[in-house]
């Protein structure tokens, strides 16, 4: 099996099939990552496409055997940051998306419970900064090490650690708050 670096070098030399393989490898992980970071699937799809376009445009600046994976994610990181600080992003209110219920879902109550926990998580994530969401996505969504995360974000490993802890603490306190809200709401319903 060819490495990412081999494939990209082949692409640089005009092998269209190499690009195809790279896109097949990275389309899903990159979409998952950007979706987690931006909490918006449609926007994530746009930025995945833009990331690959930037990859093509900047192909000449790649020097083999530079690691391909951190380079690709660094491009996505800069695009996400640019979007986040753009005028448009500052005006758009990020909303949690409601996933469609699939035929295999066991029953509506369970589906709703799972949707609510997902909704709470999404809501809690909007309280994190984009930097914190990126660290969480790379560490726990993409399963990267502290060093790999640090390389992609161009920050020291110590900052990755502290950012991870801060983000998780914030996430935990928001989730606990939402859970107690839900419980009190359900309690109120039962009393009613």
């Amino acid at each position, binding site marked *: 099996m060819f490495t990412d670096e081999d494939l990209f070098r082949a692409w640089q030399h005009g092998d269209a099939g190499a690009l195809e393989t790279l896109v097949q490898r990275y389309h899903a992980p990159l979409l998952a990552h950007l979706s987690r970071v931006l909490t918006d699937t449609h926007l994530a799809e746009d930025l995945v*496409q833009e990331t690959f376009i930037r990859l093509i445009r900047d192909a000449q600046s790649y020097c083999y055997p530079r690691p391909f994976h951190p380079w690709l994610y660094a491009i996505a990181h800069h695009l996400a940051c640019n979007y986040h600080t753009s005028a448009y992003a500052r005006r758009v209110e990020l909303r949690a998306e409601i996933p469609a219920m699939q035929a295999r879902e066991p029953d509506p109550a369970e589906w709703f419970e799972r949707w609510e926990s997902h909704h709470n998580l999404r809501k809690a994530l909007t309280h994190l900064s984009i930097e914190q969401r990126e660290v969480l996505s790379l560490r726990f969504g993409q399963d990267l090490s502290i060093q790999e995360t640090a390389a992609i974000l161009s920050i020291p490993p110590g900052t990755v650690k502290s950012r991870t802890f801060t983000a998780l603490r914030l*996430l935990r306190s928001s989730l606990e708050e939402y859970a107690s809200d839900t419980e009190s709401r359900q309690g109120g319903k039962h009393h009613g």
Partner: protein
Amino acid sequence: MDNSSFDQPPIQSDELPLDLQAAARSYANQPVPRPSSADTAHLIQYLLAEAAFQAQDTRYEENDHLWHIPVLARWRVYLLGPWFWIAGVLLLLAGILLARSITVSDLITLLILLLPLTAVLGLTHALRTPSAGLRAVEASCPVNFAQTSISLGLAILAFAGLLGLVATLGFTLANFAPFWNLLLAWLAPLLLLTAISLPIALLRNVRLAALVGGLPWLLLGLLALAEQNGPGIVRLFFSLPQDTLSLSSHLATILLSLLLLIALFTSAPKWQRFCTL
């Protein structure tokens, strides 16, 4: 697009306390969208077409992107609205009107002090504040984010330069100062501070750019006004260049700043990815 599938990667929880591991696990278990094979095939088709287009037009784009800058500058100027520019003029006038004793020397000092400050503060404000329609301009124009910001910076620089030119003509007509000496006196700091602030604003942040570009100059200017009658060395920055050394240092500053701005302007596509703005 399958929007309800669940990714469950293993948690690297070896360094996390137990209470945070649960939060990390909920995070990792959140559903994420997965592209279908048709989505991926569509993306590949699009990218291959884009790559072919890119290969065909690389040479054209390398020479052509500079021509988009004036177009963008026009849009960014329009989007900032009239009050931004009126505020620039008011800042300049207010500084002059607030001076306690208006002597010709004070006026010249204030002009040299306030013109670069107007440009630096205007630049940082404009880069920090979004305006209606900005995203549409960013999305519709085939140049990158850094180029749009640089175009705005150059438009503000041109505006401050125009204000300075009008003031210099007024001073010359009133026989307060020789035209070329006064022009060099404010143009050198204006270009230098803009050339310093612009990359800092783009690569670090706008507050730091305002601090680095504006604060030392403001302090030096206030010091120069305070020691108006003294022989202080600070006065050299805010007085008209008279001797050869002073003239040549001003010219050298202008040339150096112009070189910096041209380098920023032309190499924007290469360092755009490092922008933090």
